[in-house]
């Protein structure tokens, strides 16, 4: 008992808010703490459900197809892709930017929403962070195989070699190497640190020796001591604080790949914020694509509630509107800037031979998220799922439009061209979805896909000053 708490007179007690202002609980039905452990850990512990085998049966061969395509590309040469002069960056870089962008929602949820004290993030952050890591893995493939002679890709790293040559750091492409590898490493550290207490949960529940040893090994001997929690929470806060500028810098640096060049349509200062907003937009789309079906098949509707889905839809609406504004502003500046090349690049984007890609992009990214203004749509899971996929299609097209339309028209009309993908292009990209889904399915089968300890921490039972947390029974709290 501290004197300060004992001295508060009963009359100062804050009145409960009126029912219409009461926030919806983050875990429905006032479930007890033990239920939360059993329910979340149960997803990874129970018998492998049929749907999982079906999903795995589709995604694993798709992943293998990706590797076969890469092997074919490396053994034959980049000629098997459709890119050629003048469009030397095409599907590969589009896919790279697309996947990197997907990852950004995971970091936004885990870091930025944590700093903003958005407690609803705890139900979705683990799965979103896993999504980030897997998406960055898919992204990393493309620049490496795009270099042509993939066996020299390690030249990008600053390591001493017998060539006595170092990477050239004036180039944004080299900055990208640092940005993406840091992003992957820090996301992995953050994700793993969040997992440690939950791995201890899995260790303590393990039903056989192998599980106990493996979970135990990775739980590092965590024993939920408050002296440990104190350091842990500080480290978590610091990692969130570090990940926030990181996530903003990663897509900014990715956009520098374009913005630092001098091509019309690329050389614009709006790119960094525009890319970051688009990344978060597409990432939330992917989180919804994954979690909307998962919460029903894994019976997690009480933890990932309709309110969670609604809030994510609102983020999609907000970032989608920012993206729409950026599209408009690009056109405005192209006209207002008075540069004929710039204006032509944009005229070509919307009305040139790639007009179809541009208008798919506008329909998917600017028009479709506006449907989320309506609560009826935000709470209709089928609609949310469909729109989330549409958003992802749109964001893939955004990167394609930016890359292909600018490169297809050079300054000299003699150099103009048109890019069409080959089957190898298409199958490699489709294959990365197989890789992504395979990794995600394995993750949810072996690790708790919702942060158990964090979800417990936001329930009323966790609050020592709430009646459900035991307050009032012993007197003064």
């Amino acid at each position, binding site marked *: *008992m*501290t004197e300060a708490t004992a001295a508060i007179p009963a009359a100062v007690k804050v009145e409960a808010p009126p029912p219409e202002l009461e926030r919806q609980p983050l875990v429905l039905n006032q479930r007890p*703490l*033990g239920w939360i*452990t059993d329910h979340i850990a149960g997803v990874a512990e129970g018998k492998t459900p049929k749907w999982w085998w079906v999903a795995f049966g589709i995604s694993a061969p798709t992943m293998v197809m990706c590797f076969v395509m890469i092997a074919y590309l490396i053994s034959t040469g980049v000629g098997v892709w459709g890119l050629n002069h003048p469009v030397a960056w095409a599907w590969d870089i589009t896919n790279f930017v697309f996947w990197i962008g997907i990852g950004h929602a995971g970091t936004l949820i885990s870091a930025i929403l944590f700093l903003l004290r958005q407690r609803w993030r705890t139900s979705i952050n683990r799965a979103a962070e896993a999504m980030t890591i897997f998406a960055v893995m898919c992204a990393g493939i493309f620049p490496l195989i795009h270099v042509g002679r993939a066996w020299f890709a390690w030249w990008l790293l*600053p390591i001493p070699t017998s060539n006595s*040559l*170092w990477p*050239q*750091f*004036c180039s*944004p492409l*080299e*900055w990208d190497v640092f*940005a993406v590898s*840091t992003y992957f*490493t*820090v996301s992995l*550290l*953050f994700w*793993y640190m969040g997992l440690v*207490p939950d791995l201890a949960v899995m*260790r*303590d529940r393990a039903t056989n020796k192998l599980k106990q040893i493996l979970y135990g090994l990775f739980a*590092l*001997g965590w*024993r*939920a*001591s*408050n002296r*440990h*929690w*104190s*350091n*842990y*929470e*500080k*480290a978590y806060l*610091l*990692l969130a604080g*570090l*990940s926030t*500028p*990181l996530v903003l*810098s990663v897509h900014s*640096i990715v956009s520098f790949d374009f913005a630092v060049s001098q091509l019309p349509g690329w050389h614009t200062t709006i790119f960094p914020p525009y890319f970051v907003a688009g990344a978060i937009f597409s990432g939330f789309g992917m989180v919804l694509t994954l979690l909307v079906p998962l919460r029903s098949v894994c019976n997690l509707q009480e933890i990932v509630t309709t309110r969670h889905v609604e809030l994510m839809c609102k983020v999609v609406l907000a970032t989608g509107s920012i993206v729409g504004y950026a599209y408009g502003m690009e056109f405005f500046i192209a006209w207002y800037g008075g540069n004929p090349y710039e204006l032509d690049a944009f005229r070509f984007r919307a009305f040139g031979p790639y007009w179809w890609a541009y208008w798919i992009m506008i329909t998917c990214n600017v028009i479709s998220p506006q449907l989320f203004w309506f609560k009826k749509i935000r709470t209709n899971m089928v609609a949310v799922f469909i729109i989330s996929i549409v958003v992802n299609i749109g964001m893939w097209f955004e990167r394609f439009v930016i890359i292909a339309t600018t490169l297809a028209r050079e300054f000299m009309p003699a150099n103009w061209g048109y890019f069409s993908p080959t089957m190898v292009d298409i199958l490699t990209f489709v294959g990365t979805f197989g890789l992504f889904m395979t990794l995600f399915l394995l993750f949810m089968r072996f690790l708790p896909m919702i942060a158990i*300890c*964090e979800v*417990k*921490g936001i329930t009323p*039972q*966790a*609050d*020592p000053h709430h009646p459900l*947390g*035991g*307050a009032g*029974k*012993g007197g003064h*709290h």
Partner: protein
Amino acid sequence: MDLPPRHHGLLAEFDTAAAILRAAEKVREAGYRRWDVFTPFPIHGMDHAMGLKNSRVGWFTFIGGVTGYFTGNLMIWFMNAFDYAIPVGGKPMFSPIFAFPPSYELTILFGAFGSLFGMLFLNRLPRLHHPLLKNRRFKQVSHDKFFVVIESSDPKYSEPEARRLLESAGAKHLELVEE
């Protein structure tokens, strides 16, 4: 002569967050030094109740971050201006401006390593073997129970006294933890 088996400490179980917070205040006021609270999730206000100071993890992060930034700058200067100078478009061989993005990323990278490993170092983890991890009852700490442990190595420790204190704090169950 058989000595009684040495024990690690006295384990007390509690059911609610409020109960454990009150118990922690009592144990601290009783003047114990080597004791700890174990909870399934961090409880708001527990650091204050236990009298813990602000965590020192931040120093590790800070040192990591500063090291990262200077490593980046030094590396780029060494590689592009000193060891094998690469002239690009008549620009200076080295400038902190173009060295900034990679150095910025290294600041974050090293800072993140500092945070994680600093946290593990301060917590003396990994430690895969611990008397508490052998205790069957203690397994509930990752489920829904709350524990206080007063270690037998505490200078003030005497078993009957610790028992009395934890009972008066409302412990639901008390037991000795084997070494």
